[in-house]
């Protein structure tokens, strides 16, 4: 069953949390809603869960209107950032909650409930923890209990609100791979909200990048990273060097640097270019620069350079091994080549870009 969101808008008194959002989520898909705080991602999730309602727009789930159902009737599994466990109930009672509150005719028998709880405890690797209270568990264990509780009612749609946000880095990574496996095993449709791009890119089939109540881009992690569709996505995902460009005749220029031929046949006078640090390389020719700092981060070294022509500070990623062979010192003179640049034309209105006229340039492509 496809989950179809169309033209959702939600305005709070002071700001728009969602502004005409449309999205189709395929059955069995693992979708990440990625954005900074205030981007509307949590509002969108809460609307799916039935905890908030849009002013306009519709949500359908295999043809059924979800907005006509309240949270209780939707049968979605919901997991919160801060677990939201019932702290007066044991782990077992927490997991069984969704089954025990069912009306008598729909409620499984006692034995059936405890069998299901046992199975879920096993699934979330918490066998033997059933009699504990949430206060006696670690963060990662609590979140797994929350997940088991959500899965107990056998939802077809699983919603996760920053599920790993409150956990340590190591637990977070272990738990998210585990979650990915679980998703594949159970064949659920999963939507999860995160502000952590690494998490979104690693876990999701598709990522929806949100900004100020709108979806900037929806696509596979690869597409989001390699072909960012808007200036916002360029700047939000990964690291990027930004260049303000002018058109001179048929060339795009940044200060004294040339990025290439004008791809828009003189339709625009200004543009902006984004170049990822790994799309810049040290070479024998190209843009002249001076080395300012070296930040060694394991396998990759981040070099901070000042371009001679524009005095702009840029970042270049180089494999650490290559750097060792070069034995560079701060102040050294270098040449940098740009392999791939994503450019957007800028309109005269301040900062208005035209995402639909995005082009990819190869400033230093060798013949």
């Amino acid at each position, binding site marked *: 069953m496809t989950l179809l969101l169309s033209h959702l808008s939600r305005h709070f008194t002071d700001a728009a949390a969602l502004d005409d959002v449309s999205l189709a989520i395929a059955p069995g898909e693992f979708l990440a809603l990625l954005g900074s705080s205030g981007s509307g991602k949590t509002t969108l999730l809460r609307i799916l869960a039935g905890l908030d309602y849009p002013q306009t727009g519709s949500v359908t789930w295999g043809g059924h209107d979800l907005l006509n159902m309240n949270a*209780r009737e*939707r049968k979605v599994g919901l997991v919160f950032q801060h677990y939201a466990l019932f702290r007066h109930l044991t782990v077992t009672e927490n997991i069984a909650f*969704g089954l025990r509150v069912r009306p008598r005719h729909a409620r499984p028998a006692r034995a059936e409930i405890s069998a299901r709880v046992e199975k879920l405890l096993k699934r979330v690797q918490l066998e033997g923890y059933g009699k504990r209270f949430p206060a006696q568990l670690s963060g990662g264990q609590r979140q797994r209990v*929350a997940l088991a509780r959500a899965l107990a009612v056998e939802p077809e749609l699983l919603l996760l609100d920053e599920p790993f946000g409150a956990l340590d880095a190591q637990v977070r990574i272990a738990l998210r791979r585990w979650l990915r496996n679980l998703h594949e095993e159970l064949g659920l449709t999963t939507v999860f909200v995160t502000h952590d791009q690494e998490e979104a890119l690693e876990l999701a089939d598709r990522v929806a990048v949100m900004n100020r109540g709108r979806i900037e881009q929806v696509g596979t992690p690869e597409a989001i990273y390699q072909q960012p569709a808007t200036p916002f996505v360029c700047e939000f995902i990964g690291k990027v060097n930004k260049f303000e460009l002018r058109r001179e005749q048929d060339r795009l220029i940044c200060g004294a640097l040339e990025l290439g031929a004008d791809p828009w046949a003189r339709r625009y006078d200004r543009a902006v270019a984004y170049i990822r640090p790994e799309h810049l390389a040290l070479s024998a020719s190209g843009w002249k620069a001076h080395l300012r700092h070296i930040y060694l981060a394991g396998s990759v070294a981040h070099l901070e350079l000042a371009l001679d022509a524009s005095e702009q500070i840029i970042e270049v990623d180089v494999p650490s091994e290559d750097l060792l062979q070069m034995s560079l010192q701060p102040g050294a003179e270098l040449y940098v080549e740009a392999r791939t640049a994503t450019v957007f034309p800028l309109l005269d209105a301040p900062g208005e870009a035209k995402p639909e006229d995005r082009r990819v340039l190869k400033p230093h492509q060798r013949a």
Partner: protein
Amino acid sequence: MQRRRVLPGFGLSLGYVVTYLGLIVLLPLAALAWKASGVGLHQLLQLLSSPRTLAALRLSFGGALVAAVFNAVIGLLVAWVMTRYRFPGRRLLDAFIDLPFALPTAVAGIALTAIYAPNGWLGQWLVPLGIQIAYTPLGVMMAMVFVGFPFVVRTLQPVLEAMDRDVEEAAASLGATRLQTFMRVILPMLMPALLTGFALALARAVGEYGSVIFIAGNIPMHSEIAPLLIVEKLEQVDYAGAAALGVVMLCFSFVLLIVIARLQRWSGRWAERSA
């Protein structure tokens, strides 16, 4: 091995606590028990089995229980409204809650009597309907409700403030109805604080004297409370009898408070970290 703590001074502070409790609480109680021991066992039994004493004790404890239950229910409602909603006048209303603490109890009693007496503001309309409040056990309970009211509200408020809304949302998305969410999630989490408030309101109502005697009318066997009986014995210079009755009340209260404390511990067992 001596463990080092950020704030030292366990021995000194415990010494203070014990001395203080001894002087303020235990010493007067010991004096009371000593005075009561002047009454012989036979005399004590006679005193206790007198219908008038029994009626007074029943009204004092029964009335206090009813008043505390009433306060628990209404106090929960008031605390809920005060913490969950923001409305104009909320702060003013919040300040009103403490007024029963600030008012001299005799003033409260006189005010209640003025309102509910057969010729009072409300009494003149209620009495013809057959609802008599002043000079009946109902009036006694009303005064007890009045003086105990702030306890439940004030003990619940901080707990409600600290309670996360997402627990309710989790319950709803798991399929719980509103009633189920309240009964199975919210109420159990509030129970320890609710019992504290209940115990305080109960203790206050059992010991209340000033406001009750005005509205009670103090009709023996009908609307006479045990503390009044004690005062009466004092006026008849029957110090030992007064002390004996006092000790009986003390024992009852102590047992009640212990039972509530056990209940409270049980209802809050989930908060203890150790397995």
